[in-house]
């Protein structure tokens, strides 16, 4: 029972706690919910106009001023004037300490000495000449090599044709050579056989003549010479020894044994020896006749032999020439190798020519350079001499005086300052008759609304008027910017003071103008969030709705927009966090913060 009582009490407590929590949550539900939704501030888009104000700042400058430059290397001893002092021409502006350190002057003098020496040495140095003969020879050699390589290339390109032609010659002449060789052999054999036959016949004649001689020696009367053709004169052997021509001249007969009167009729004889001699003489005559025929044949055969031999020699020579051509063709390189050799040779020629030209150019440059260096040295020497003169003059200077009368401005030196160069303006003097001006830089669009003679509004009370005297493109940005020069009219104007001029430009009225912070942009374009209000038993409820708008104009702070649903609706101009379409928001008044 005790256990059941404990459980009951626990359940009652739990239910009471649950109801209490529910009541608490219900009571604070709006507050809790409000904590989770972003606070926004809304405003209505109102009719209005946008004005963009363009301003520019410039520095007042004196139109007539005299700059006092620093003196490089000198130390200021004492500045005798102060800002806005009025000085007269000749008044001392500042004094200088004596120069203790002469090193800069000595350095310049050393430089001058070096330059002078260099100039003299250069003038005495003989000009260097280049031997161009060697370079020209190199070009010639390279060109010869190129010609040979080109010939080889041509031959290599014709190699196949050459081999084919040579083979044709060999094949054509080989058969001819064989035929001619056979012909030569045949003719040679004929000549040999004819010669042998002639020899045999001559031998027979000799035998018979010897026999006749013996018979004659034995006293056998020789028969009356029978007009046997060919035997009317000396013996045939002698005739052949004297030549064939002699045989045609019967007056040259020397043999006393021969009958010199062929017109006498033969005397009949009965001596057998005499008959024998007659027979022998007939046989000799017969043989000589044969020999004459054979010699004619021999002459023909010899002619044929000579002709065939000559032809054979020609054919053999052609074959030998063709074989030599073949051998030469075999020895030729390939076309690509020959082409490479040509390229190489061509490159060598080009290199040689380039070397030649470069050498000429280099020599010319070296000559020009030497001349320029010499001229530079001469100029430097003149410059150094001038510097040394100026420096010597500066070193002797003890004070700087005012070149004109006027007010002193912009003093940038003080006692003890070391001046490093001669270009720094250490102060300037403005005569009291000087006028003043200021130059502003305005955007081109703004400057288009300005005219020469127009007054600009400036921010300084002491300026009576600021009148535009000149408008020209800005040298740094000629397209987008204009330099507007104004004349300052003031009782007192101080150079160096800044002036800001404003140029107002108003736009037309717009239907809906809202703070620029209301305009939101995303990948869908520009839009605003319109606050839509609804009332429920739990209170007012605000939801934002995305409304696409077009931007008509803006001046940065305010933006003119157009779009649907802008009239009569509040637009979110400030939100604690980025919103999304349909987000519930809390409308908050931030006015107490400003």
């Amino acid at each position, binding site marked *: 029972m005790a256990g059941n009582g404990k459980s009951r009490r626990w359940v009652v407590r739990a239910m009471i706690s649950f109801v209490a929590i529910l009541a608490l949550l219900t009571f604070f539900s709006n507050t809790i919910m409000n904590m989770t939704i972003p606070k926004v501030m809304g405003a209505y888009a109102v009719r209005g106009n946008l004005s963009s104000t363009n301003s520019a700042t410039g520095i007042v400058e004196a139109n007539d001023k005299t700059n006092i430059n620093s003196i490089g290397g000198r130390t200021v001893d004492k500045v005798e004037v102060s800002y806005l002092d009025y000085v007269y021409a000749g008044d001392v502006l500042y004094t200088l300490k004596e120069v203790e350190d002469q090193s800069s002057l000595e350095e310049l003098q050393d430089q001058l000495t070096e330059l002078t020496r260099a100039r003299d040495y250069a003038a005495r140095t003989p000009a260097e000449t280049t031997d161009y003969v060697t370079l020209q020879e190199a070009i010639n050699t390279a060109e010869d090599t190129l010609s040979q390589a080109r010939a080889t290339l041509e031959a290599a390109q014709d190699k196949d044709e050459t081999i084919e032609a040579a083979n044709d010659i060999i094949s054509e002449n080989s058969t001819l050579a064989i035929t001619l060789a056979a012909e030569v052999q045949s003719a040679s054999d004929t000549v040999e056989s004819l010669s042998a036959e002639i020899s045999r016949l001559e031998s027979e004649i000799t035998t018979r003549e010897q026999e006749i001689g013996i018979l004659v020696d034995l006293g056998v009367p020789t028969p009356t010479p029978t007009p046997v053709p060919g035997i009317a004169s000396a013996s045939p052997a002698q005739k052949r020894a004297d030549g064939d021509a002699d045989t045609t001249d019967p007056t040259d007969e020397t043999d006393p044994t021969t009958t010199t009167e062929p017109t006498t009729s033969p005397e009949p004889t009965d001596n057998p020896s005499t008959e024998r001699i007659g027979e022998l003489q007939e046989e000799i005559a017969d043989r000589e006749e044969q020999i004459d025929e054979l010699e004619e044949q021999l002459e023909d055969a010899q002619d044929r032999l000579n002709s065939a031999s000559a032809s054979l020699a020609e054919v053999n020579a052609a074959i030998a020439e063709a074989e030599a051509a073949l051998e030469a063709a075999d020895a030729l390189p390939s076309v690509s190798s020959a082409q490479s050799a040509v390229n190489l040779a061509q490159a060598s020629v080009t290199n040689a020519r380039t070397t030649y030209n470069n050498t000429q150019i280099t020599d010319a440059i070296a000559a020009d350079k030497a001349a320029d260096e010499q001229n530079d040295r001469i100029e430097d020497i003149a410059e150094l001499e001038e510097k040394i003169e100026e420096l010597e003059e500066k070193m002797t200077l003890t004070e700087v005086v005012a070149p004109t009368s006027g007010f002193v401005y912009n003093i940038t030196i003080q006692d003890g300052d070391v001046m490093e160069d001669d270009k720094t303006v250490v102060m300037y003097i403005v005569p009291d008759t000087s006028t003043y001006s200021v130059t502003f830089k305005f955007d081109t669009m703004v400057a288009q609304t300005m005219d020469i003679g127009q007054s600009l509004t400036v921010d300084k009370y002491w300026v009576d008027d600021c009148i535009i005297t000149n408008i020209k493109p800005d040298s740094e940005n000629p397209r987008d910017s204009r330099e507007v020069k104004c004349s300052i009219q003031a009782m007192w104007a101080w150079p160096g003071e800044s002036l800001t001029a404003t140029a107002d430009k108003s736009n037309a009225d717009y239907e809906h103008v809202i703070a620029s*912070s209301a305009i939101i942009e995303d*990948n869908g374009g520009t839009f605003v969030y319109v606050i839509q209000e609804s009332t429920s038993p739990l209170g007012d409820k605000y939801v934002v709705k995305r409304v696409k708008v077009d931007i008509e104009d803006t001046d940065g702070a305010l933006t003119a927009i157009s779009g649907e649903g802008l009239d009569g609706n509040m637009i979110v101009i400030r939100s604690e966090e980025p919103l999304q379409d349909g987000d519930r928001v809390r409308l908050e008044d931030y006015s107490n913060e400003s």
Partner: protein
Amino acid sequence: MSVKSWIRDYFKETGDIGKRRFKKLVLSAPFWVITIALALIITGVVRYTVLTANRADTRMAEVWSQGSDTPYRHVVVYARGARREGPTSPLSYIDQDVSLSRKDILTIRDSLQNIVDSQDKGKKDKGVDSEGRPKDWEDCFSSFLTASVTEVLGDDAGRSPISTDTQVVAIEGNYPAFHPFVYLSGGFLPEVPVDQDQIVLNDVLAWRFFNSYDVIGNRVSIFGHEFVVTGVVKENDSFIDKDCGSGEPRAYIYFTALEKYAPLDSTIQTDPDGDSEQTTETEIQFGINCYEAMLPEMVNNVSVTDVKNSLPNFNNADPKLYVVSQTGRLNIFKVWDYMLPMGESQSLIEGYEFPLGERAITATISRLFIDIILVLAGTALLFLGIIIAIMRGKKFAENNIVNPPKDDKVKETKEEQK
């Protein structure tokens, strides 16, 4: 009873009490372990949620792509530069490896525009617009320096103007698309300038000068030039942002105004041939500290690669520009990847001057990492507690502790023992 025995009994009883309490504590260990574990987990999760919610600047891609099927990614490139005289000098360009200049931005824009155009085959109007601005995506760039800002008073003010050292952020492009502001008055500098001399103040600076946020049209002077106030913004003011300097005065001007009014000096370089007499005067370019792009992303995380590929001279193996995706930067895996191995990311960002937002995000990541550790530790403890509870349950069952004898019987036993 002697003193000695009294002391002995005292310590014996004290020891027994201690033992019993310790035993009780040990027996109740699972409860405490689980309680601590849940506390750690809840702390970690709540902190993570709050810290992440405070960083709206990492969710600008979602805002930009709302109502669209195309997801966008917000990618940032941080570059280095040199300052001649410390923070008061504008950031100047060093070289193409480590710095970005206006020329580089044009190159990057062209490259990214080509990439964006290539994603839409049917697109006809390709390329950047006539004024060199991107189409169908957004970008902006900025640089900052410390400058003395002076209020401009009227002639009848009767007091001296106030000057204060302020961080001046020079911007160009659609800067508000990447940086959520709460506008207290006016608006931000329009993407297409209507007046180059406009300036936006943060609430701190506006209040310091004017004791009001409704200061549109007032003037302040920087670099000796007057600017017209066109808006007052309130930056993120979480405690991390405050630690990182959101409570400091800050002003936003156009980058062109910085170029115009805070010119960099030219430098004289010796001729590289070593001839000391021949020197060339080189104009120093303005360096860009931060370039941001909002790119449509058809393939997850490809925009980061696209941006890297568009950077001149970017070497992925040896990055000299810091490229980071703001979108999704605070998810658990990115935070874990950024923090581990310890020191790796730190070495990557050495030498960079980060703007306020990046410093705040980096600090947030460090805290988020602690939250992750808390949750992990809590989860481990939770498992440990559960295991201990299970084991203790088994032990109790073995020792019949689950169904212990009735209290009356125990009392009787104790009395008998006494």
